[in-house]
Structure formats: structure tokens, C-alpha cells
């Protein structure tokens, strides 16, 4: 599934750069993600992967460039309005490394809260939707518990349900399994895999090479603030174009 074959990309980045003062995190990134595409982003730590992901929904404001998400375009640097950012974020769901659930709300309320306050659904409708989603991630029995009572893997699945409840067009995953034991990470990856096969557009910053190879449609390798590879995962993983990629893969796979 080559990105260029699709007419209207779901997500498109044009000349996006991010600096903190003098320090450049990444510069001039161009990227298209088609509807239904699953893109994995890998690379050594400090390459700017997470920052790039956070720029897509303006959790970090890019220093320059233009981001289009589900037909809404925001150009960085010229007085970005809160309303535009709000509208763009509504189309993207995000899953964090550390889950970021609300510890003072029950599992059900975690998933229903934004539906009621943002989408103005009634409590009844919101809870109905939440229960369906919790069932989908295998956690309907936990609706009444508090996040602290759930394992890390369960918390991350709740966080996925919370993001899905807003009916996003794209899901952004920021190292969703990095804070989990490998075994526990598998249950999260299983949910993500199912989501991918249902046709959700996904961008995943990850260290899970197996997932990147077997589930993603395209693979992006970032290093030193640049995209150095972009294409078919199997091909990149077996025959990388770039020495930097080879070095990285040897370090990750060779242990």
C-alpha cells in the first residue's frame, strides 16, 4: 500500500521543523499518511520521534511548516488560533507512554468524561459507548474500578478506549508499550493490531520491531532530526539504504 497511490492523505506534513531555542529537534519533515495506513516510526532515542508525533496534534507547536489532518490545515508560526488547534485535535486520538489516565475517576468515567464535556453526549449515551469500547479492549468488567487497581497493560487499553471514544480519524501512539513489561505489552499490541485490521489510520512511535515489521504498512526511520528511511517495513529492516539505519538495527536486534 504505497502512500503516493492515494489521492487524499489523512495526515500530511509539509516542511515541519521544531527548535528549542538554538537546539534543532528536527527540520523540514515531509510526510503523508493515507486513510487506513498504519505507519510505524522508529529510530534511536533523541531522534525527535516523540516530538514529531506531538507536533502533529499541536501538543508541541512546530516552529515552522504546515500540518493537515483530516482536511484541516494549520500553518505554524503565524498566530495559531486555539479554536483551529481544538478542531484539529478532535480528529486525532492520542495514546501516551505513561497512559495519563485520570486517577480520581472510575474506568468508565475516564472513557465517558470527554464524550460528555466535549461531544455533549448524555451520560447514558456516553456510558453505552464506553462500555462497548471497554468490551472491545477486553475490560468491560473493570468499568467500575479505579485505574490504580488495574495493571499497566490494562491501563493502556483503557487509554486506547478513551481515545477511541472521541471517534478520531487518526490514532497517534507515543511509545505505548515502553513503560510496560514485555509480556504485558503484548496485550496492548494485540488491541492495536485489531484496530489496524479494522482500518484505523495509525501513527505509532515504537521500539517494538516485531510490530513494526508485521503490522505496519509503512516504516519511517528517524535519526538526528531527519527522516532517513521511509517505505516498506520488511525491505527497510532487511536491506536498509542508510548506514545509520544499519547501526541502529544492529543495536536493537542484535541483543
Amino acid at each position, binding site marked *: 500500500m504505497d502512500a503516493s497511490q492515494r489521492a487524499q492523505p489523512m495526515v500530511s506534513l509539509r516542511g515541519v521543523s521544531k527548535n528549542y531555542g538554538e537546539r534543532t529537534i528536527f527540520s523540514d519533515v515531509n510526510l503523508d499518511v493515507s486513510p487506513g495506513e498504519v505507519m510505524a516510526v522508529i529510530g534511536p532515542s533523541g531522534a525527535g520521534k516523540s516530538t514529531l508525533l506531538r507536533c502533529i*496534534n499541536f501538543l508541541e507547536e512546530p516552529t515552522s511548516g504546515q500540518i493537515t489532518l483530516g482536511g484541516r490545515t494549520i500553518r505554524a508560526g503565524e498566530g495559531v488560533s486555539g479554536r483551529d488547534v481544538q478542531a484539529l*485535535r478532535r480528529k486525532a486520538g492520542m495514546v501516551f507512554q*505513561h497512559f495519563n489516565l*485520570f486517577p480520581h475517576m472510575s474506568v468508565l468515567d475516564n472513557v465517558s468524561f*470527554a464524550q460528555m*464535556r*466535549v461531544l455533549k453526549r448524555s451520560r447514558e449515551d456516553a456510558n453505552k459507548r464506553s462500555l462497548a469500547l471497554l468490551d472491545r479492549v477486553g475490560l468491560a468488567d473493570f468499568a467500575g474500578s479505579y485505574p*490504580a487497581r488495574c495493571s499497566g497493560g490494562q491501563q493502556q487499553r483503557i487509554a486506547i478506549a478513551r481515545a477511541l471514544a*472521541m471517534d478520531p480519524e487518526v490514532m497517534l501512539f507515543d511509545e505505548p508499550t515502553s513503560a510496560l513489561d514485555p509480556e504485558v505489552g503484548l496485550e496492548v499490541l494485540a488491541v492495536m493490531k485489531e484496530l489496524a485490521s479494522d482500518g484505523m489510520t495509525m501513527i505509532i512511535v515504537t521500539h517494538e520491531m516485531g510490530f513494526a515489521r508485521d503490522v505496519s504498512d509503512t516504516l519511517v526511520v528517524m535519526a538526528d532530526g531527519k527522516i532517513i528511511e521511509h517505505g516498506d517495513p520488511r525491505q527497510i529492516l532487511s536491506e536498509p539504504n542508510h548506514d545509520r539505519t544499519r547501526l541502529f538495527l544492529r543495536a536493537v536486534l542484535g541483543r
Partner: protein
Amino acid sequence: MSFITDWLDWFPTLFDGLLLSLQITGLSLLLGLPVGLLLAVFASSRNALVRGICVGVVEISRGAPALVVLQLFYFGLPSTGITLSSFTAGFAALALTTAAFTSEILRAGLQAVPAGEIEACQTLGVSRLDTLRFVVIPQGLRIALPALMGFAILIFQATSLCFTIAVPELLSQAYSIGSSTFKYFSVLALAGLLYAAVTIPATWLVGVTEKRMSRHLTLAH
């Protein structure tokens, strides 16, 4: 054991004084805490003027002794044409002190709410006000609870300063009994024990709350 009959004699009067002390404490907290919360929220405002005013009010009211604030309200304000009864001056001054001190406690509590949860709200499209109302403030209050309870004990003790502006609270009652019977030690000791009867159990309660909180918070992470 003549002091026992004395104490039984004095007790109803002192108890009335204690009730007034508790009433002043309650009113000061009722009035001061919401103001403290507003100061805490606006102290991190993006508007520099708002921020400056908040920080100024807090720093001056924290820097001056409560006794000075109290006497300023009672003896100082009349020169500007505002005359307050001693009771009103008492709880208004203590409410201002409460607002200033609790705003710092609450600010620390609000800041202790993990930034990741605020980011989660942003990505869900939750408005700034809703984030504050449903996520930051409920948790910040909970984190700040033990410190707030500790401060309530201090304000209860500070009501004794209202003696200097002739509010008939516990210490005033004890002092006036002392000056008519000359049994200062005995009556002041009884007053002291009445204060302690409130503060020592309350301090114990703070300790219990603190322990429960820390257990709750470690479970969450």
C-alpha cells in the same frame, strides 16, 4: 482540690469562648479558602498584571504577622472611614491570612497534578476551564488536603489573637476571669487545655489523612 471547683465554675464561660473561637475559625476558612483557590489559579495566569496583583496580595499578607493584619483591620481601617465590629474585623483579617497561606498550599497541590493528565485533556479536546474543574482542581485539593487541615489548626490557634481587639473568645474569657479572681495560672491552664483538646486530636487526624493519601498516591503510580 479547690481548683476543680473553680474549673467547674469557669467551664461554661470558657466553653462559650471556645465555641466563638471555633466559629471564627469556621468563618475564616469558609471565606478564605475560596479566595485562596482563586489566588492560586490566577497566580499562574498568562496575564502579567493579574499574576502580579495575586503574588503581591499573597506575599504581603503572608509576610506580615497575623497580629498586624488583625489590628490593621480593627484600628487601622477606621482612618479610611471603614469601621468594622471587633468580630467582623477578627474573622475578616484571619480570612485574608487564610487566603494568602492556602493559596500557596493549593498552588503546590495544583502543580502536583501530573502534566500528562493535562495533555490527555488537550488531546481529547477538553476546554481549559473543564480541565481545571474536573481534573486539576479535584486532584489538587485532594493532594493539598493534609496541609490545609494543618493550616486550619494554625488558624484556630490564631483566633486567640482576637483577644487584642476585644472579641470575647476563649482567651478573652479566661483573661477576664483571671483579672477578677487573680487565679491567672489556673484559668489560663484550663483555657490552654481546651485549646489542646481541639488541636491535639486534629493534629492526629492530619497524620492519619497524610498516611492514607500517600498510600493512595503510591497505588496510582
